[in-house]
């Protein structure tokens, strides 16, 4: 049951199928418990992927070098939004 999760999109698709199967009912108790566990695992994975990107702003120069963005930009979005 606990096979590896490939990526965000496939995890989401599998989560949907799992929920539908579970909602359809008519399952043995251990089968439905296993599905539930898998579903929890999938939704946790999706949430993690949503939050895991790194907060960073970089500037790419014409020569292909990476620099940090000016402070004015780094600070943007932090203050003026409610």
């Amino acid at each position, binding site marked *: 049951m606990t096979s590896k999760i490939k990526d965000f999109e496939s995890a989401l698709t599998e989560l949907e199928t799992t929920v539908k199967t579970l909602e359809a009912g008519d399952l043995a108790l251990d089968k439905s418990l296993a599905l539930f566990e898998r579903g929890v695992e999938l939704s946790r994975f999706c949430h993690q992927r949503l939050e895991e990107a790194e907060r960073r702003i970089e500037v790419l120069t014409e020569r292909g070098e990476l620099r940090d963005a000016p402070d004015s*930009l780094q600070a943007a*979005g932090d203050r003026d939004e409610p």
Partner: protein
Amino acid sequence: MPNLFDLPFDDDDPDSKTPHEPRPAPQPPDRRIFTVSELTASVRELLESTYGDVWIDGELSNFKRWRTGHLYFTLKDAGAQLKGVMFRSAARSLRFTPEDGLRVIARGRLGVYEPKGEYQIVCEQLEPHGVGARQLAFEQLKRRLEAEGLFEPSRKRALPALPRKIGIVTSLDGAALRDIVNVLRRRYPNAHLLIRPSQVQGEGAANDIARAVTQVTAAPGVDVVIVGRGGGSIEDLWAFNEEVVARAIATSAVPVISAVGHETDFTIADFVADLRAPTPSAAAELVVTRKDEYRQRIDRLHERLTAAARIGIRGWQTRVRVLEQRPGLAGWPVRLALRGRRAAELSHALADRVRALIGAGERRYHQLRLRLESRDLRRTLATIAARLTVSEGGLTAVMAGRSHARRESLGVLAGRLETLSPLAVLGRGYAICWNADRTTIVSKADAVAPGEAVRITLHRGELSCTVTTATAPPPPKP
């Protein structure tokens, strides 16, 4: 040379036929004779100085672009024609593609080509009449790229479900970048942004944008790119209508969102991009709205999952409770208690029974042992001895008979052995030659020397002899 203006050439075109205005030949004040070259040079000087910078409205015909890059054409209207040329240096800045039948405004100077006596307009600028040159260029490029299929909906790629790194091409100082960063930071605080600053208006902007797009779409990890700038005049936005920008977007490896100007301005970049956003902020929202959507979708799925599991488990609980209430099951505890008591009783009975069985076994063993000891063993032995004696007599007789038979067959075998003996051969006249002391059989002539004694065994008796000659056989061939 103002005197030339007095010539009929000036206000009365010698080529045009105007029969309704006949005029008497004027009398020249003095008779000056020009050579052709002199006159042409004068005309040239006159035309070039007078029409050094003119604007002409006319229709293009016989348009040709030479391999050198120079353009040749004729401007005409209902009544006249004028040859024109536009040299490569000027033609490079053309913002549209000239074609026959197009009404244009040309700006340039008149030039005279003396060897042929022709004059023409040397164009510095050429613009379509009516619509602006830019508008026409826009329409032409749009038509061309559309024909190439670059605007096909099938070419549009879906945005990544979750952008890992968002590329941005815009001016570092512009409001556009600030807007994008603000929106992303608000709605997707952990976004990773890669900005490739670019000039977005003025000379060289198009090339810079194109390079930036190519560079950032190829940067590792970038899976979506926003390219754009804030609103402005059509002039300001023009770089986004250039072919080089369109090409860079079209060949991008990752989806590109165009975000140029405001709602109503559509640029070529908008048509080529995978997605068009009316403003830079909108582009940022298009990228991260998806994250919000996903989060909600996952949360909803999680709720449904939990609910479904709860309902499922509750169903099983109910079934168990119902079964518990059934009379069959309800009686079980009492029945079990009864059975338990019965089991204990049986267990005791079993132990008693086993003990009884063991006692009986012991008694039987003692009885048997007593009976065994009471038997007279000596009588039994005598009987056995008598039987042994009888058996022994029989055995001797049998053995004697067998012995006789063996002896007879031995005689037969000896006779047969005799016929095989080498001594029997002597009876047929063969003899055996021995050395003197009869220890070795002489089988080779050179084993004895002349004068040596040998003994010969015959069938009956023996001879003692002396060797007179010993002749060895010739040596065997190798």
